[in-house]
């Protein structure tokens, strides 16, 4: 048993080193913007860059609408299927896996092909482009949202809750917003935060639809011409991911629902 434990520690140490070394290297690099001394200059440069805030807020807004649309699409549908159309469960589960089959780059290719031309012409206006972006993100977020909501609904007795609400005279709106939503709010929160983590720094879809307006393409631009600032951005972005994942763990107490993000 002793020997086994040594090997166990060995693999953990290897993994932790793989995880930590790039972070240390990046942090160290981000402190060297001033020649000959360590400073937080690269961070001040980023935080005083108006474009940083503009793109960050833009991506936050897009994430907000993505979460809103995902919740509106996924929660009532999953609930309804559980209650009335159990035969559709396989279908919706299959659909929620589509982002694993259609990579983001192919998805955005198809979206542009269909919606930039006649009859939709969505890319002609800013609003249309944002709609397309949110639609793309909603598709990307589908696996997390569906899994989170489905797990949440599995943990409660949907049928009894619905019947109880109905017998008290509740309509569908009341049932959804006052009974179902509050009962699965932990699942909804973790699905929402996973979506936020996926969308906030997303590059592929954003770069083809809105370009430099979004946070992912902004980071990429900084990487092309500012070495130290790009390292500080990597650290900021890492802390952001850590924060969001920490929040999810706090809600879900270790229940991981994420499978893959936007690479």
């Amino acid at each position: 048993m002793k020997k086994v434990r040594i090997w166990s520690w060995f693999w953990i140490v290897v993994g932790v080193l793989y995880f930590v070394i790039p972070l240390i290297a990046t942090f160290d690099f981000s402190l060297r913007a001033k020649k000959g001394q360590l400073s937080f200059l690269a961070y001040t440069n980023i935080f005083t860059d108006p474009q940083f805030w503009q793109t960050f807020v833009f991506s936050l807004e897009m994430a907000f609408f993505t979460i809103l649309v995902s919740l509106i699409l996924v929660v009532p549908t999953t609930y309804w299927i559980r209650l009335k159309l159990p035969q559709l469960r396989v279908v919706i589960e299959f659909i929620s896996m589509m982002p694993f089959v259609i990579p983001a780059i192919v998805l955005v290719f198809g979206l542009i092909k269909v919606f930039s031309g006649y009859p939709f012409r969505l890319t002609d206006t800013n609003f249309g482009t944002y709609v397309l972006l949110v639609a793309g993100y909603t598709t990307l977020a589908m696996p997390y949202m569906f899994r989170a909501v489905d797990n949440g609904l599995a943990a409660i007795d949907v049928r009894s809750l619905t019947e109880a609400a109905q017998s008290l005279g509740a309509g569908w709106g009341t049932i959804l917003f006052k009974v179902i939503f509050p009962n699965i709010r932990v699942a909804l929160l973790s699905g929402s935060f996973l979506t936020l983590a996926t969308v906030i720094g997303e590059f592929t879809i954003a770069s083809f639809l809105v370009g430099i307006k979004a946070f992912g393409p902004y980071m990429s631009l900084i990487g092309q011409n500012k070495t130290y600032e790009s390292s500080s951005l990597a650290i900021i972005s890492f802390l952001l991911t850590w924060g969001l994942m920490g929040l999810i763990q706090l809600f879900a107490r270790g229940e991981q629902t994420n499978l893959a993000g936007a690479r």
Partner: protein
Amino acid sequence: MSSNPQPKSLNTKRDAPQVRPANSDWKKWLGVVPFFLFVVLFIVLPSISLFVGSFQDSQGKFTLKNFVDLTDPTIFSAYWVSIRISLATAVGGGILGFFMAYAVTVGGLPRWVRSGLSTFSGVASNFAGVPLAFAFIATLGRTGMVTLILKTIFGIDLYDQGFKLYSFWGLTLTYMYFQFPLMVLVITPALDGLKKEWREACENLGGNSFHYWTKIGLPILLPSLLATMILLFGNAFGAYATALSLTGGFINLVTIVIGSQIKGDVLHNVGLGYALAFGMVIIMAVSMTIYYILRRRSERWLRI
């Protein structure tokens, strides 16, 4: 169901103990219309459009030439490099992730290691794209920390040895960063499913640890292991942001070629671009199908 008062004569008929009133049978399908409308508009339509486009020439006539053109050496090598990198990171990340998951489940490490690992895997598997590329440039780039340490302390100059961050190995090492944590996340429940009784039964029959793993443990885990590695394969195969920011586009990957095609007709053939994308979907669809089948197989033994 309804709180509106209704005429008594009607009510007596409606209140018959029917679970599903026949008249609302078609109505219940209305509930899923918005979702499926979204799916048709933003997933099915773009996919069909790419599919149709890949069978059209520049005049819009039917052709199979685009698929013949996929065998062009540059295109073929783009697929080949993508597949090799995805395979390497799936196997490498899979092995490292498996041993780490093994360590915290069967390996007898304290509980805090396990919860720490689960948090870290959640973060690391989501830390990808542009910032991950930056991190690896600061680590293994020409002036990266590890590069400099190897050079000054160990006298090994990576870049003299032919290492480049925007090559096969550079990309593989970078992808591994999000691959092995994903493996940890997915395979840990499978390892939890190994029952203590199986090991005891093996020991009672005079078997040792070697027998246990070769005859019981690995055969039971194999479908989950393969399934997860295929998931990792697809995860790397579709990666675009990480590869682009790491290499500036100086690597011939399928995603990078598609990316340049979206920006402008670099292939000088629009249909070929669609065929390229369609080919990617085929590879992903095949791997996800195998994943699904293996997953079903593994569930026979392990309740995940």
